Structure formats: C-alpha cells, structure tokens
C-alpha cells in the first residue's frame, strides 16, 4: 500500500465509491445464479382448501415449550406450515414478548435430527419398529397382564403440569406405587422451600414494578429465571422513570449484572454472610427494627460486623454500607435470589438470610404478595428438583428399578458426572425414552418413543410462576405432523393407560378427545357463561383459560438459621462457576443453530465453551485469552479456552453449561465441554439439592486445541475511551432525565 501513495482515509473514500458502484451495479446481476428456472417444483392443491389463500399467513395461538415458563405464542402458518413464532400479546405470562429460545422453537420443530420412528433395542442396538411392535414391547413390561411390580417402575420427567400431569398420575396410580422423579437442572427448589417455611407458600408473587430498589443475589432477571419473559418485562418497567436501583450480587456477571447500577462480586458461597452483614448495617446504622426478626437470629446478625464480612466475602466495607443505605432510603425494596446463592453448599441458610432482609425492610405485603393459590391442584405444575435426581441415581444404583420412563429430561447429560448415571442406567433392565431427539439418555434406552414436536401436539400447561393473573395455557398443533410415526405426549400416556386397562381412559380415541372431555368437565364459572363448544373455541383462539386469583394476605416469619461458609481447599484453590445462560438453558437447546450462533450475552462467544477468569488470577497463573487450560476437580477435568474478564470473582473459573454433548444431533455433538461432568458431590444439607456452585478446581495450561478455539463476536470489551456508546452514571441520569 505504501508504494501507491494512498493513506487510510483515501483508501476508505475509494472503497466507498467502489462499494457504491458495485452495489448499484449489483442490482442488475443476473438472478439466474441463485434462482434457476425449472429446478424447483411448485405443487398446487388438488382441491382448493377452504379458508386457505396461498401466500397469506394465518395466526394460531399456542403455548411455548422451550422452557417451563408457559409463555403464550402466536404461530404464523402459511400453506399448512408454521413459519414464525411471536409472543401472544394477551397472555398474562409474557404479554406479547418471546425470548430467543421461544423464537427458535421452529428450529426444534424443523430440526433435521428429529426422531421419526419408534426404536427398540434388539441384540444390543436400536432398530426401527412400528408403533404396534413398540406398544407390544411395552405391554409385555407394564401391561395389565404383565407381572410388573409398581414399586419397581419409575418415571423421570421435567416440569409437568396440566392434563398431561393428570394422565401421568392416573398411570402411576394404576401401576401401584410407581415413583415419579421430577428433575430440572434449572430449578428454584431451595428458594421454594425457604418460601414455604417463611410464607407458607412455595410461590409468592414478586412485584418489581412496585420496588424502588432491588437487591438481587444472582437472580438473572433478564436471563434465566422461572419466567424469563415475564421477569424481563418486569425489569424493564422497574427501570422506567422513576428509575429503580438495581444491585446485583453474584460471582460471575450475568446480563442482569451487566445492567446493574452496582455489581458486587462476592466470594462464591459467602453470599449468606453478606446478607447478614447488610442486616447488621441496616439495624445498627439505619434504625431498622430488629424486633421483626427472631431474637436468635438477631444474636447471630450481631456477629457479622462489616470488617468480618469483608474478610469472609471479599466485599469492601464501604460497598456493604452503600448497599444498606440504598435499601434503607428506597422503600419498598425487593430482595431476590438466584442459582448462585441457592445452589451452594449452604444454599438454604444463605437464601433464608437473603430472604430475611425482605422481612427486616418491610417488603412483605408490599413487593411480595401471596400468589392466591390455584384452584386445580391436579393440574398445577410439578416442578423439578435436583434432590429427585440424587434419589433416582441412588435407586438405580441399588438395582431397585426395573422399568423407567424418561420425558423432558436428559439426565445422563445434566447429572453431575460423579453420579455415573450411565452405569446406574445399566442396572435398569428396561428403559423407555419419550424424546424428540436421540440424546445421551435416549441412546441408553431400550425403547425410544418419538414425540411429536410442541408445534404438532395438544396439551395444557399451568405455569409454575403465575404473575398477576393465573392461567391454564393451551397448546394446540400449529401444523400437521412432519413425521407421521411420531406421537404426542398425551397420546402416548393414553396408550399406556389403555395397556393398563384403566377404567375411564379406555374410551378416548385420542388425547384430543380426552382434552375436549376434560374441558367440558371444568366448573361452569370458568367458562365465561358460554356453552362447551364455544368455550373450547374461545380457548383455542385466546390461547389460555383465565383463572381468577383469590386475594390472600401474606405474613412472613424470618427463619432463625445459622449461615455456614464453605471450607477452603489448598490443592483446589479456585471455585467452579457453572453459569447457566438464556439460550443453551440446561443444554437442551445446543442443537438449535440460531441459539449456537447467538453470541453469549457477556462474552459474545459462539458455538463453543470457554472459561472466564479474572485478570488478577490470570496474571498470577500466567494465562491470557485464547490459552487452553485444564480445569480439574477431584471428580474429573475438562479442557477449555480462557477468556480473561473482569466480570468474574477472582479465584474462580466460570464455565457455562450447555455444550459438550456426546450425542444430540449434528449441531450439538462434539462441541465444547460440559462443566457438570466435573461437579463435586457437595449438596445443600437442608434440602438435599446438589450444590452446582460448590465445586473446587485447579487449572493448568495445556496445548491449544485448534478445533475448540474461542470464537467471539466483537473484538474488544472496552471502548478505549472513544465513547462509541456514550454512558452517564445513574446519578447523573436521574438528575437530568429521571423524575
């Protein structure tokens, strides 16, 4: 370039003109290059379909199944194919919004790796069979004439609710003592138990919109939560003028943390101590009434002076002071908890300590209210817990299970590696997997029943977290099945009930008929005063049945529990942070190219795994971004590229969950690593939940693996002072723009 007497500016100028010229000329590029004539077939209708105009979309309401939140969707259907999903504007759950996982629902549906036929293990390998053969194999194992022992049959599912849950209950009952394990890697079981003890309900309703300040211990409001779209919308309203203040305490930055006014990295496992310190400061320096708390707890709080808190948590005294000041001044506030505090070794106690702040600050009844209950307990959501997984692994290992059914879970992938679930499953003689895809668990199965996709199936769903208005969400097929030999979950359950010859179910030809009958049986007060047929049609059109909430008051008792801290381990000096992000979720979306391609919210990494390490720790260990490290716990190791980043607590390594599939189709397999495989066996003592954040690791540098290099969008995390995106502090914003 130097020889041509051309500088950068001139170069850009020339490029500009050249580019414009090329662009305009490009208008007349022959289109035959990509649109060859006579290559594509257009098949007309044999008979014109009534109401169908080719080229015009028709919208149908249904319910998203990409996570258990139960958002309402509108699917655009053209010529009998669903093309696009959007949020249902009238659904009280998501009010028109739909997250990237929901949007990507069409790629689950049209995924080229879908299972299309039932598979039965014959002589060691799975081979295709007809449904008649598949059901005959089932009949032999669990049919009415089989010698099945109910106590030795188990079901493992993810969150299940609605009428599928009714059918499943009926089946379990007919089997006499069959155990139902409900397992979700992403769950709020610890918080639910704290809530139960404090408020007498597992699911109170949170009102971010009424709060002036939110202190979140790892609750990812705009990412992974019990209801991602709902809480993201609440967050947006909370941040509208007058802008609420958000303080986020977490060991590695989430998107919520990135948006917080104050981001506080606390040493993993010590968040409970920080909560006690904040309580100490609120009582001593802001006149908060300690009598609201049990006297035993008061005594414990006294021990957490700020100097001690700083030593324990790594959070400087002045930061704790300013947190307490904000909370004291901005009432009502709201304290929320998420995975990083709940899923630690002392998760229950730490979560209880955080929740205690809500009592001390007088938030109960203001920003936390009763959910009002749900009138149909048989339809209510059964949400998963990790404790169920541990119990299942135990029973499987002991040989206490003869037949197991899996639906909506992939425990071989999501279970901590030390459980060695593969070996446990080996001891179960007959394993049945109801699945859309051949995943790690399905490949262990003896019988694989291919499911219809969520966009091809009927169902009702009761969201576990119901905001202002409760609903029974309606799922209806948006199109014909892509593969005729797949079946809906409800239909398969009905088939099994027929094999068991259970009275009351044998008359239904299919699940659709069962649902219509169930709708007719709903009490008249929920039917808007119309007849059954109109009620059914109204529900299909709107996408849900509204269930009025009862007004119920809420009272709280803070729990008198001692916060304990994790032990140190000199040989394994770092904490492993298995972050969970909206997108991959628990790994179930790793086979969706759109979500693989969507950059991670914080690191902008795509299509792989990485380890976030604080610059201080990186320089101590001699690591730079792009280096490869072995992350090693007592249970195993994984090798990942390093991403040096300030948004992570020093002395910890963050590796996101979701990648590292051995089997899950072409887009997921052999990509990245699964940090769950190296989890330590730590559990929360009170709830028995596996402590995802309770693993200690060490790292060592290894050779670069060219197949797994870190690929990121955007080259820099800093603007290097160029003000490409100008920012002002919240204080200045409030003074100039806020109320």
């Amino acid at each position, binding site marked *: 370039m130097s020889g041509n007497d051309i500088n950068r500016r001139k170069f850009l100028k020339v490029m500009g003109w050249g580019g414009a010229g090329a662009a305009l000329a490009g208008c007349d590029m022959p289109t035959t290059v990509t649109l060859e004539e006579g290559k594509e077939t257009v098949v007309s209708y044999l008979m014109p379909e009534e109401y169908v105009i*080719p080229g015009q979309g028709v919208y149908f309401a249904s319910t998203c199944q990409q996570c258990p939140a139960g958002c309402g969707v509108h699917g655009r259907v053209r010529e009998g194919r669903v093309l696009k999903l959007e949020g249902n504007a009238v659904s009280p759950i998501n009010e028109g919004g739909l997250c990237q996982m929901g949007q990507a629902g069409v790629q689950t549906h049209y995924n080229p790796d879908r299972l299309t036929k039932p598979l039965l293990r014959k002589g060691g390998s799975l081979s295709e069979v007809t449904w008649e053969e598949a059901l005959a194999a089932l009949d032999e194992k669990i049919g009415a004439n089989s010698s099945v022992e109910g106590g030795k049959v188990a079901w493992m599912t993810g969150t299940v609710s609605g009428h599928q849950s009714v059918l499943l209950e009926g089946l379990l009952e007919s089997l006499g003592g069959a155990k139902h394990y409900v397992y979700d890697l992403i769950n709020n079981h610890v918080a639910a138990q704290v809530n139960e003890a404090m408020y007498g309900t597992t699911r109170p309703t949170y009102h971010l919109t009424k709060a002036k300040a939110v202190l979140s211990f790892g609750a990812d409001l705009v990412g992974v939560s019990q209801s991602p779209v709902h809480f993201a919308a609440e967050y947006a309203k909370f941040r509208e003028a007058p802008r609420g203040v958000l303080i986020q305490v977490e060991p590695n930055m989430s998107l919520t943390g990135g948006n917080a006014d104050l981001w506080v990295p606390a040493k993993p496992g010590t968040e409970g101590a920080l909560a006690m310190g904040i309580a100490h400061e609120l009582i001593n320096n802001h006149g908060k009434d300690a009598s609201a708390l049990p006297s035993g707890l008061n005594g414990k709080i006294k021990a957490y002076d700020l100097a001690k808190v700083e030593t324990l948590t790594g959070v400087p005294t002045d930061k704790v002071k300013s947190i307490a000041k904000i909370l004291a001044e901005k009432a009502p506030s709201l304290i929320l908890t998420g995975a990083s505090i709940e899923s630690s070794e002392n998760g229950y106690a730490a979560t209880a300590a955080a929740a205690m702040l809500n009592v001390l600050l007088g938030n109960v009844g203001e920003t936390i209210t009763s959910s009002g209950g749900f009138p149909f307990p048989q339809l209510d959501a059964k949400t998963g817990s990790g404790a169920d997984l541990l119990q299942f692994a135990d029973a499987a290992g002991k040989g206490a299970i003869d037949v197991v059914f899996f639906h909506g879970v992939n425990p071989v992938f999501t279970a901590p590696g030390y459980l060695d679930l593969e070996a446990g499953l080996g001891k179960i003689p007959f394993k049945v997997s109801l699945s859309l895809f051949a995943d790690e668990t399905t490949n262990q199965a003896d019988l694989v029943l291919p499911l219809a996709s969520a966009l091809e199936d009927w169902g009702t769903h009761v969201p576990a977290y119901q905001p202002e208005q409760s609903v029974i969400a309606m799922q209806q097929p948006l199109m014909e099945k892509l593969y005729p030999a797949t079946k809906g979950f409800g239909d398969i359950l009905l088939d099994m009930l027929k094999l068991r010859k259970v009275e009351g179910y044998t008359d239904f030809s299919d699940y659709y008929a069962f649902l219509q009958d169930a709708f007719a049986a709903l009490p008249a007060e929920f039917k808007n005063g119309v007849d059954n047929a109109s009620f059914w049609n109204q529900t299909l059109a709107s996408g849900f049945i509204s269930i009025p909430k009862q007004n119920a008051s809420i009272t709280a008792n803070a729990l008198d529990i001692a916060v304990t801290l994790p032990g140190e381990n000199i040989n394994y000096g770092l904490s492993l942070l298995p972050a969970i992000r909206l997108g991959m979720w628990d790994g179930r979306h790793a086979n969706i190219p759109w979500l693989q391609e969507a950059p991670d919210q914080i690191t902008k990494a795509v299509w792989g795994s990485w380890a976030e390490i604080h610059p201080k720790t990186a320089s101590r260990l001699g690591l730079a971004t792009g280096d490869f490290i072995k992350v090693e716990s007592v249970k195993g190791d994984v090798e990942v590229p390093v991403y040096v980043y300030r948004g992570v607590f020093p002395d910890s390594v963050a590796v996101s969950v979701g990648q590292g599939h051995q089997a899950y189709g072409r887009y997921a397999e052999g990509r990245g690593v699964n940090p769950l495989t190296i989890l330590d066996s730590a559990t929360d003592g009170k709830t028995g939940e596996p402590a995802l954040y309770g693993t200690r690791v060490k790292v060592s540098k290894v050779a670069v693996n060219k197949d797994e290099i870190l690929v990121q969008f955007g080259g820099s995390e800093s603007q290097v002072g160029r003000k490409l995106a100008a920012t002002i502090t919240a204080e200045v914003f409030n003074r100039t723009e806020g109320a």
Partner: protein
Amino acid sequence: MNKYTYCLYNGKRPVSWVSAILLVLALVFSGAGLAEVPNAVPPEGEHKGDDVPQPIHFPHDTHAKINEINCMYCHTYARRSKVAGIPPTSKCMGCHSVIATDSDRIKKLTEYWEKNESPPWKKVHDVPDYVHFTHEKHMKRFLFDNEDMEVERVSEVCAFCHGEVKDMEVANKVKPLNMGFCQRCHEANGGPSDCWACHK
C-alpha cells in the same frame, strides 16, 4: 472483463443497434406496446429464459389467447395474495372432464387427477427469499385502482413482468425480475423506494 465491469456495463447499457432493430421489429410484428396500460410505464429489461419442460406441456396461448380466458380465472390468488397461485387440479378438471378429453395432455392430466395427485409443475418465475414481492399490491395499482383500465385487459398488466404469456405455450422467463428491473419500474411509476418496502 471481471464481474464488476460486467455489472457496470449492464447498469448503463447503451442501446445497441441490434437490440433496437429487434425491438422495432417486435413492435411491428406483435402489435404489442401500442395498446398501452393507462397511467403506467412498463418496466424495461429483457431476459432470455431457459426452456422449462413441464410435466404436462401446458399451452397458455390456447387458454388465454384463443379462448380468451382471463389470467385471473386460473391464477386466482393474484388479486388477494403475495403469490398468483398455480390453479388447483380440480379447476383444470372443471373444464377438462368434458373438454378435449381425448387429447394426450388431458389424458395425462386425468391420470394425475385419478391418482389424487397434482402435476409437479416446475417453477419458472421466482424472486429470492429476502425479497417481499406481492402480486396483490401490483394488481391493485395497475388494474383495480387504475381508473381507465378494464379488468378484461389484465394480461397486459401481467405482461409487465411475465412477458406476453398468451403468445407462449409453456411459460418462459422473459423479464429479468432483478432489483434493477424492479427499481426502474418503481421510479417510473412512483412505487416505494424504501429498502424495507421490499426487503423485510
């Protein structure tokens, strides 16, 4: 000549003598272009399309020219939708269960019909997926909302983009249907020039 000079040449094409003579000859012999669609400037541009063999050699001329059937009788969705629509096979059979039933083509059509199948027609005209083209809007502008235009003359509007199909047997692509072609017509007829009018 690299690909850019080729493009530039195409963009500012001088009217060559050969094509001018051809154009004059075409006008003289066909008589087309004389009866003009009112309030419209037809788009400019030609394309030499491939011959596309179809499962049944469908004669457009027999239908549209000799028997004067309106284009929209078969392509019924043109006025209502993005796509003009290939007629349902039942529509073909509506006439051909009694008309010309002994011709080879109709025998073939009847075979399809009796098997409950539609002929697998090959697509001739297409635009890329990132282009939102709608027949409905164009029919409105040039036909239904065009004051001095009679619906019977619809084929002249179709001809803007599809050429004189009524003179063809199986349709060929004779217009380029690329962005320059669209844009010149939009400029001449006051169509939208926003990028996102078409690219959405």
